[in-house]
């Protein structure tokens, strides 16, 4: 292929593509951005005021982070796939008083508090063809998520979305959702995207659920962190017609958010790669306004916020995600801006102050001061260290996977099951 990549012909094709993008997209969006520019600069963007590196916090606190990884292809046995899921939870102590900042709690303490190994490895199987895909998946999800009561799982979403106290499912009757109560009773019934249960979709759902499960275990454990960080965004895929999450993980997230609020834990999700258009332009604006190397954040408001949503993403219905408040931020000029999402309900209660933008800003600045402080590890400068560590711990390298497959083969042998090759099919053909 290399000989093609190095041709002028290929360069020509790229040129056409980029021009096309420029012409089609940017021209229209550029206009949109121009409409947002002043508002961004004057209302949404602000600097982070960093702690001095030798600051001693009045009260040191804990920061927990969860990340997960996995493979939907540990082993393929005809139409059955074995999914491998790993999660890792890291808890850091700001520990400024002892002068050894962001000291990780040792593994034994965590294992003790969570009642499971760290990092945690799990596997589930899934069959896509026999028509029982949904049932099997529901079984796996129910097994993964620690909360077993389906009413308790779904109600938080409806409470948050309708901003109503709902004691039980019957309180839904008479609302827009009243018609669906009968389809909200089981894990299986919460899977409403059955026709789209492709292998990657199944794996993603299992993985997301595992991460939420790990996060939930932190919340119910004796560890009482101030922050609980998740990897990714707080997006929820919605069922278009019914206007509630199309997969159980959406309900899980809201359940998690409500539990976090109850426990006074700040739940947030950080993503390095995000889909915020014009993020680079916002970053440039920040540099121009605050100087090279400044640390900044920028609220990405939604339609319900004062002033409404931004023009740049008005066609993108998933920004901001339902019930979430995203910010762009950058703490290091070497990195592109990242995104952080907060639970909107928490945000309304703890950050946003009605009719008082400067109070709101004060709260935001205090919040980002802490987020910045936890993102200064020299290995991943500008990114929350707890998340980076969790990522390092849970990731499955190619070599890890290869070994896991070998072990799987061994186990089959031990059980006297018919021998199957455990390597991916493509390897049969040296591909």
């Amino acid at each position, binding site marked *: 292929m290399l000989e093609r990549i190095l041709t002028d012909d290929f360069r020509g094709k790229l040129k056409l593509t980029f021009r096309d993008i420029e012409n089609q997209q940017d021209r229209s969006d550029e206009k949109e951005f121009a409409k947002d520019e002043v508002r961004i600069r004057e209302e949404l963007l602000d600097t982070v005021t960093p*702690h001095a590196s030798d600051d001693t916090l009045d009260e040191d606190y804990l920061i927990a982070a969860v990340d997960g990884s996995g493979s939907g292809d540990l082993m393929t046995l005809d139409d059955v796939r074995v999914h491998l899921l790993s999660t890792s939870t890291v808890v850091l102590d700001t520990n400024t008083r002892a002068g050894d900042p962001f000291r990780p709690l040792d593994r034994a303490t965590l294992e003790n508090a969570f009642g499971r190994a760290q990092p945690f490895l799990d596997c589930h199987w899934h069959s896509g063809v026999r028509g029982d895909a949904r049932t099997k998946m529901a079984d796996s999800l129910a097994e993964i998520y620690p909360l077993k009561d389906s009413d308790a799982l779904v109600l938080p979403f409806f409470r948050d979305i309708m901003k109503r106290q709902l004691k039980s499912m019957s309180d839904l009757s008479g609302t827009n959702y009243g018609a669906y109560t009968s389809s909200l009773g089981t894990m299986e019934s919460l899977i409403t995207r059955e026709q789209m249960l492709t292998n990657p979709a199944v794996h993603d759902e299992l993985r997301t659920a595992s991460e939420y499960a790990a996060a939930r275990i932190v919340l119910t454990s004796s560890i009482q962190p101030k922050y609980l960080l998740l990897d990714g965004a707080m997006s929820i895929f919605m069922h278009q017609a019914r206007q509630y999450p199309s997969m159980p993980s959406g309900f899980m997230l809201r359940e998690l958010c409500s539990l976090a609020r109850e426990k006074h834990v700040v739940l947030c999700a950080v993503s390095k790669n995000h889909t915020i258009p014009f993020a680079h332009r916002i970053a440039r604006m920040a540099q121009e306004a605050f100087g090279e190397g400044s640390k900044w954040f920028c609220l990405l408001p939604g339609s319900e916020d004062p002033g409404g949503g931004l023009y740049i993403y008005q066609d993108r219905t998933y920004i901001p995600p339902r019930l979430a408040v995203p910010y762009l931020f950058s703490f290091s000029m070497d990195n592109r801006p990242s995104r952080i999402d907060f639970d909107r309900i928490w945000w309304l209660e703890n950050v946003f102050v009605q009719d008082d933008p400067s109070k709101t800003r004060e709260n935001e600045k205090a919040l980002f001061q802490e987020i910045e402080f936890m993102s200064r590890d020299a290995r991943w400068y500008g990114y929350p260290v707890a998340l980076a560590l969790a990522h390092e711990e849970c990731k499955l390298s190619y070599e890890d996977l290869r070994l896991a497959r070998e072990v799987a083969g061994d186990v089959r042998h031990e059980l006297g099951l018919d021998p199957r090759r455990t390597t991916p099919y493509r390897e049969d053909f040296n591909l």
Partner: protein
Amino acid sequence: MTLDIRNLGELYGKVSVGDQTSLGIMGNNRDVSVGEIFMIYSHRDGHERVFFFRVLALQNYLRQVDDMARVAGTLMVEGDAYLSGIQRNMLLQVGGKMLGYAELEKGKWVFRSPRRLPDHLADVYRPVPNVSDEAVRKMLASQTDGEVFIGNLQVGEATLDVPVKIPSKYLPMHMGIFGSTGSGKSNLMMVLIKSILDSNLEASRNPNEKRPRISAFCIDPHDEFAKGVTACGIQDIVEAMDQETRASVIGDFYYLTTHLKATPREIQRYGREIRILWEEILPHDLYTIMDFTPQMVSFIDGQYAANRESWISAITDMKDDPEGTPKGTLNAVQRRLRFIERSPIFIRSGSSILSDVFVAMETGRVLVVNTSLMSDTEQFLLTTVIARTVSDLRRAAKSSGTLGDFESQGAIRLPGPFFNRIKARAKSFYSAGGQSDESGVRDPRDMPVILVTVEEAPSILNPELMRGQSVFKDLSRQGRKFNIGLIVVSQQVSVLDNVILSQMNTEVNLRLGNEREIQACIENASVNISGFEDEFRVMARGEAIVTASYRELPLPVRIPLFDTLFERDKSRYKASKATRASEKHTF
């Protein structure tokens, strides 16, 4: 199995990569130094093995960091950056050499050269003094056992209570002590002398154990051994002995010197003056220590043939070149013999010490020979005469079936008057039983081991002199037959003759002066120690790497200061019932 892993030491790390000669270990970021010895525990198919690994290279390793420079850069540029929980992730990548492994075989620990690999990710232990000593002692018994203690096993900066000894049966296969000035050669010699005395003491107290006696003729060029370099010396051992012990281990004297009057009173009591009669010197002795032209050699040989043992007086008394001798030869030879004429120790007439030295050597005694007031040539000639005399007598015994044969052999090989003086004693030493001419002769290997030290060895063991008829060339090749060994002490290895070096089977390599000597030492070592260059460079005084052809493992050794050893052991030189019982475990 008998091994308790907890006694190996502290768990240090895991084996990461390697083959049967070199290994990589990932370990805790502790203060590890080049030269440390780690043990790797491996248990496979019912075989328990402990591999020994020597650290040759160290590298910091930060887990989760691929690009150390980037992290260091970030720490620099972002002044407020920290490293969370870095302590746990700071690891040390340790590279080194596999030395071999110990394995239990029929209830006994054996040690094997590296030809296997430890398990994947096997546990690596770091020996800890007071914890690991006994386990290491057991596992390395085959590598450290012997009669003559030289020091304790060193594992990096720590020293274990694992005594390293040389088996007396290998002493006749010659030993080299190499080290630059101040590296601790003199102290080592004193430690060796003490160990020999201890071994002889042990032998005399336990006559049934058939422990060989060891004799040594120890040149002491700075007159340090008797009084000691710092506080104590051999004299202190002698004085610490009770009468009976002293009589059996030291005899009447142990100290030889040029002028007894110049010696402190207490040492004088055990001293003798060195006197060697001209008649006890053979031409061969002179050829060993200085260069002669073929004309001179043929002249000397002629004079020896004509005058036998009075050849030296004959030559020195001669006025004119004799018939048929190239002009100037006499003059040149006389010039070379002048040092003998002027020497206070080589005497034309009077009484000689040589027979007493011979007796001492055949009865397992140690002589400290103060040569500080002699010229180098005198010292070399003395050493040569002694070495040649004891070896010729043993040679005569070795080639004889009966005492009668011995007498005729001795008469051929040795200067007549001397042989006549000592032959009765010699027969009593060499007899396998009985004193008649028909009585059989003992095998020299059942006689005491005789050690002769050659100090400032390069002056006589250099390739030029060794090309000719050197006594030491014969000794180095055949010493083991006669149970006579050389201890070659030198600041340099590179200048020594190859014959000597190749016959040497034990080397104590102390700190060396320069790269050339380090290289020469490594090449000369009886076991492969290539890759130890860095270690030689960081060696401190009193530290040595001991290599031996009969051992698989090069042993890093810390030689204790003589004073410390003496202080520890001094009470044991008195033969009370209590010490008798405890000695077995101490020496």
